[in-house]
Structure formats: structure tokens, C-alpha cells
């Protein structure tokens, strides 16, 4: 089908991605005057994305209850000073309004007898609101429909249309019927989530950096790419989604091969409630000591606690019952537990956006996990992905509507044949590379713990060499048997691009921060490395630059020292001889 015959959608605002960020973008765009708002998703909006499988917890600063400066201090310290503190202050100022809106739209949050929001401890010292798993996105989809947002399901977007340096829309294809699709819009919000590289975390395997790839190829600044969100999950069976805030909040213990609770050695204050980057980093160091495998032990949870888990995490607990681990509201055995490979979600890499969620391309906005999570630094603000999605989604939608009203009309685009060929290409090949081959090749390259978790220049360079080979010898020849596999082919290609950017960024940061412990630079350097690394595609190549964090303007500043990273010192104390 020539692009001139493709089904074309027109709107004032196009929102790509139907999770919480996308839903908020669409709703706020409508509220702020955009008449025609389309929300497009490659699956069924409200039943896909990390939002749908979210772990039942939502961290919200409540203005009349919480102390602003305490929260800023805590989040920046946990974020290792990589936070954009202007963004953080805006986030804290906005988030409770979003909660009240969600509450009014039918999202159910756990409340006490007086009807007040109930909050209980999660990991990393946070206090979370609780919601009931998939019910959150079900309510949000209903609200979008009620407000007259046009929902386009089962269309995967593969590229942004730009003209004269501004965004003009996007292209894609129908994942089931296969037709090429064109979207023309004055403003575009990319709310496609992070990139989980189809790793072990069941429930997140649709999150393949599709928006990251589109944003990068369109020339957007991308940052925080070296910081990986390191969730942990069941090693040997599928547990449908994350749940660590709940498990840690209720008192889960982590044991190594010897049955030893090792976390107090790595985080004497928070112990088993440590943030994920410390937990997975600790497991990596313990593995170097030969103390893997690891287990999560929740056998001491009371039946009331297990019943709470069932309400807040209905899908993971169904998996545990089906696996014979939950019996009569008791967790009957410890479970082998392992970190995911590197990935971006809730914190970590994405589009650099200003306080209006604008990218550096006029008319192009980003929200949620597709952004670089500016407020979070190297930590997830304890269940901060959904709050970030709500806050950035609302801002992106509002300013996208404003741009659509006041921006110049998009220039007519002469031809979309190149975008069409890029989109439909794999379907037209008779022979080619299996998307499964690329998916596995990417995973095999970045997942070994000595690549992403215990990093070193020689290993990173070798992995980057492999990824470049994958990009040149496999990705251009991806083939697809049908539209379902066309989606898989694009997901594979997007994963490959994200993996390559991750490794490039990891090589550049010559210190240890976040989940990126550098064996060759085992210190946290608050003298030379209070910087963000920013990538932009220019002339077909990726170019990196650093930007100084304006730490002097911020409220929370670190000691300007270079200090051995705790993983290095604790590793040594536990008998590890670093090379």
C-alpha cells in the first residue's frame, strides 16, 4: 500500500502510549482546550504497559501532612544528587492534585475508616498509597472514553514525522490487520514507557523502548541512559509483575546461598528495605564472592499480610498460588530471586524534558518513563514511576494543547515513503533474521552481571562491539511473517538501539553511581561527576556531551568529595579481592 492510500488520522494532540502518563496527557490536553485528542497504543490502552501491571503502590507527597524539605532531602540523597531539583520541587507541588483527580475519576486507593488515604512504609524509607493493581488503568481508560478522547488500539507507532524542525505527527501500522497508518498532529506526546528488554519481569515485556528509539532518531536529547532500574524477580517462574515495595514493606528478608541475611552488611540502616539499586548491587557483589543464588523469604508473613498482598497485587499472588507457593494464605517457601538485566523504567534513561515536558523539538513532548525521570536521580523515589507518569503526563498534555492552539500549522510533508519502508520493511522480506534471534542476542549481551552491574571498561567495550555488530548485521535484515511478528521485529530493533545507547553511556561515566558500579572507578565522585550525560543523534551518529548539574542553585548539595562506593568497601570487608 502506498503511503498516499494509508489510513490517516488527524488531531490537535497525538498521545503515543496508553499507560498512566498517556492517559493523563490525553485528559489534560482535552481539559486545556484541544478539541481532537487521539491516544494510540500498540496493544489495548489500559491493559498494557507497566502501569497496568504496577505494584499497587504510589508515593505521593501530601502537602498538609508531609514536610517538603524533608522529602526533598530524602529523595535527593537517595537519588545520589543526580536529581534535577527544580523538577523535583515541581513534582512534589503537583502530585497530590493528580491523586485527588484519580480518586475522583474512580481509581480506588486504600483508605481508612474516616475515608482518608492510607499510607504504609515501602522500600527505601518511602510511604505509599495503595491501589488495587489493574483497577487503576481500567478506571483511567474509562475516564478517557468518557471525556471523548479517541482511543486507537493495536497500532504500533514506528516513527515520528518531522518537518522544518518541528513535529508533524507519526507513522505506524496495525498490529493485527497490518495496514500502514499515518497520524497528523500539531503536538505529539510520547508516553511509551521505558525499556525492559523483555527480561524476566513478567508483565513488562511489551515495554521495549519504542518511544526512546523514535525520540532518539528524531533528534531528541536523551539523558540518564547509564542509570538502570534494577528490579528483582523470581528466577525460575513467572510472577506477573513487580511487587518489591509491598514485599519489602511487609518485611521480606533476602538470603544468600548460605542462608545468611546479607543486606544489613550492605545497608546497615535500611537493611532488607534498601533501595533496589543497593539490593541488586549487593547481590552482584555477593555473586563475586560465590554466594549466589539468592532467595526472598516471606514465609513469616501473617495471613492478614498475605490477604493484603492479594488485594494490592492480584496478579503476582495468582501466580504464586498457581505455583503452589501461596497455600491457605501462607507463603510456604522461599523463592529464588534474581535481578533483571539493565533496563530503564521508573528511573533511568529517556528524553530530557524541561519543566513543561517539552523536548528540544518544537511540538514534541514526552511523559512518564519515556522521559529521563528528571526528578528521580538514580533512585525511583520509592514507587515513583506512576507519580512521575501522572505529573509529567498532566503537564505534557496541558502544554501540548497550548502548543496545538498557538503553534504554527505543521508544514505539509512531501512524502512519507521512507517512513513507510522503514515501518513495513520486515514484512516484505522473504528471508531474513528472526526477531527472536535479535532479542536473545541483545539480552545475552547486556544481561550478564559483569556487564551492567559490575562494570569495567574492557567488558563494556566488548559488549558495545557486539551490539554494533547486531545493529549492522542483524537489525537491517529483520523479517516478519505477519503483523504480529512485524511488531516483534520493531520491538527487537528498538531494544537493540536502547542497549547500544546504554552501553555507550555506561562507558562514559567514569565513577560509580546508581546501579552502575564501576569496578575500575569504584568511587562516587562528587567533585568531577555532578554531571548529566546527554546523547543526541546528529548526522546519523550519536553524539554525547556532559552538562553540569547546577548544584549551587539547588537546596540539597553533597559534600564535594570522592568517596569509595559502599559496594567496594563492603565487598572488601566480606573478603572480596577487587582486581
Amino acid at each position, binding site marked *: 500500500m502506498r503511503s498516499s492510500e494509508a489510513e490517516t488520522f488527524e488531531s490537535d494532540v497525538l498521545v503515543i502510549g496508553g499507560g498512566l502518563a498517556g492517559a493523563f496527557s490525553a485528559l489534560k490536553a482535552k481539559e486545556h482546550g484541544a478539541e481532537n485528542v487521539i491516544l494510540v497504543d500498540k496493544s489495548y490502552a489500559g491493559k498494557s504497559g507497566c502501569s497496568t501491571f504496577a505494584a499497587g503502590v504510589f508515593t505521593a507527597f501530601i502537602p498538609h501532612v508531609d514536610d517538603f524539605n524533608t522529602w526533598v532531602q530524602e529523595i535527593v540523597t537517595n537519588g545520589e544528587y543526580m536529581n534535577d531539583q527544580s523538577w523535583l520541587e515541581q513534582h512534589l507541588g503537583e502530585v497530590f492534585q493528580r491523586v485527588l483527580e484519580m480518586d475522583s475519576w474512580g481509581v480506588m486507593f486504600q483508605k481508612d475508616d474516616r475515608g482518608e488515604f492510607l499510607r504504609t512504609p515501602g522500600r527505601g524509607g518511602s510511604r505509599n498509597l495503595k491501589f488495587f493493581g489493574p483497577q487503576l488503568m481500567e478506571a483511567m481508560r474509562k475516564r478517557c472514553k468518557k471525556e471523548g478522547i479517541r482511543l486507537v488500539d493495536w497500532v504500533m507507532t514506528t516513527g515520528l514525522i518531522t518537518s522544518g524542525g518541528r513535529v508533524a505527527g507519526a507513522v505506524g501500522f496495525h498490529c493485527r490487520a497490518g495496514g500502514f497508518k499515518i497520524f497528523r498532529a500539531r503536538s505529539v506526546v510520547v508516553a511509551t514507557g521505558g525499556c525492559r528488554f523483555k527480561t524476566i519481569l513478567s508483565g513488562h515485556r511489551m515495554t521495549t523502548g519504542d518511544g526512546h528509539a523514535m525520540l532518539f532518531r528524531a533528534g531528541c536529547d536523551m539523558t540518564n541512559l547509564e542509570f538502570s532500574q534494577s528490579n528483582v524477580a523470581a528466577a525460575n517462574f513467572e510472577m506477573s509483575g513487580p511487587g518489591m515495595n509491598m514485599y519489602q514493606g511487609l518485611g521480606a528478608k533476602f538470603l544468600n546461598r548460605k542462608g545468611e541475611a546479607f543486606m544489613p552488611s550492605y545497608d546497615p540502616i535500611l537493611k532488607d528495605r534498601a533501595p533496589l539499586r543497593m539490593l541488586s548491587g549487593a547481590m552482584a557483589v555477593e555473586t563475586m564472592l560465590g554466594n549466589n543464588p539468592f532467595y526472598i523469604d516471606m514465609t513469616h508473613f501473617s495471613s492478614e499480610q498475605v490477604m493484603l498482598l492479594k488485594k494490592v497485587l492480584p496478579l503476582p499472588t495468582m501466580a504464586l498460588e498457581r505455583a503452589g507457593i501461596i497455600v491457605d494464605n501462607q507463603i510456604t517457601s522461599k523463592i529464588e530471586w*534474581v535481578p533483571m538485566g539493565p533496563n530503564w523504567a521508573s528511573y533511568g534513561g529517556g528524553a530530557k524534558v524541561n519543566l513543561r515536558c517539552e523536548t528540544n523539538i518544537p511540538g514534541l513532548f514526552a511523559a512518564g518513563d519515556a522521559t529521563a525521570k528528571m526528578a528521580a536521580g538514580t533512585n525511583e523515589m520509592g514507587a515513583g514511576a506512576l507519580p512521575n507518569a501522572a505529573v509529567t503526563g498532566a503537564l505534557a498534555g496541558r502544554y501540548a494543547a497550548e502548543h496545538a492552539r498557538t503553534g504554527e500549522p505543521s508544514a505539509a510533508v512531501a512524502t512519507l515513503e521512507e517512513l513507510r519502508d522503514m515501518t513495513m520493511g520486515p514484512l516484505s522480506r522473504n528471508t531474513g533474521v528472526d526477531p*527472536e534471534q535479535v532479542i536473545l542476542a541483545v539480552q545475552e549481551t547486556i544481561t550478564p552481571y559483569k556487564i551492567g552491574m559490575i562494570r569495567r571498561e574492557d567488558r563494556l567495550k566488548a559488549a558495545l562491539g557486539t551490539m554494533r555488530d547486531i545493529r549492522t548485521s542483524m537489525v537491517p535484515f529483520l523479517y516478519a511473517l505477519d503483523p504480529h511478528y512485524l511488531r*516483534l521485529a520493531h520491538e527487537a530493533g528498538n531494544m537493540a538501539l536502547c542497549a547500544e545507547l546504554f552501553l555507550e553511556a555506561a562507558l562514559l561515566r567514569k565513577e560509580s553511581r546508581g546501579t552502575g558500579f564501576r569496578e575500575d572507578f569504584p568511587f562516587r565522585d562528587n567533585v568531577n561527576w555532578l554531571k548529566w550525560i546527554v546523547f543526541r543523534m546528529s548526522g546519523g551518529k550519536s553524539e554525547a556531551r556532559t552538562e553540569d548539574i547546577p548544584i549551587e542553585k539547588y537546596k540539597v548539595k553533597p559534600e564535594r568529595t570522592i568517596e569509595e562506593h559502599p559496594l567496594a568497601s563492603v565487598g572488601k570487608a566480606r573478603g572480596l579481592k577487587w582486581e
Partner: protein
Amino acid sequence: MGIRRIDEQVCTGCGICVDHCAMDVLRMNDRTNKPVIMYLRDCMSCFMCERDCPAGAIHVVPVRERRIPLPW
């Protein structure tokens, strides 16, 4: 291996599972008007189809079918 069974005796052909599967594992068989497991390897055992089926026709097991590399 993820979604294991759709009980055709109990299934009403409502199509909710086909709509709600985020990984596009299921399609409607246009001859039987019942869902079929068309792309099994993409099933991630999320249990959403089993949860959302109004007839209780679906059974999922949490077994990982696709080989996924682990960090160690």
C-alpha cells in the same frame, strides 16, 4: 507455559481476552468465534486473561516458556 487452556465449553466468545492480552497472544478464530492461542511464545503468564474472563474459561500456569538470560 503461560496460558495453558481455554475451555471452549465454558467460553462464551465474548472476546475480552483477545482484546486485553497486551502481548497479542490470542486471536478470535473466525470460524468458531472462540479465541485461539496463536502466538504462544509471547505469553508472559501475566494472568490478565484469566482474571478478566467473565466465564472462568482460562487457565494460566506461571511457567516461563521463552529462554531468558539471567545475570548469573
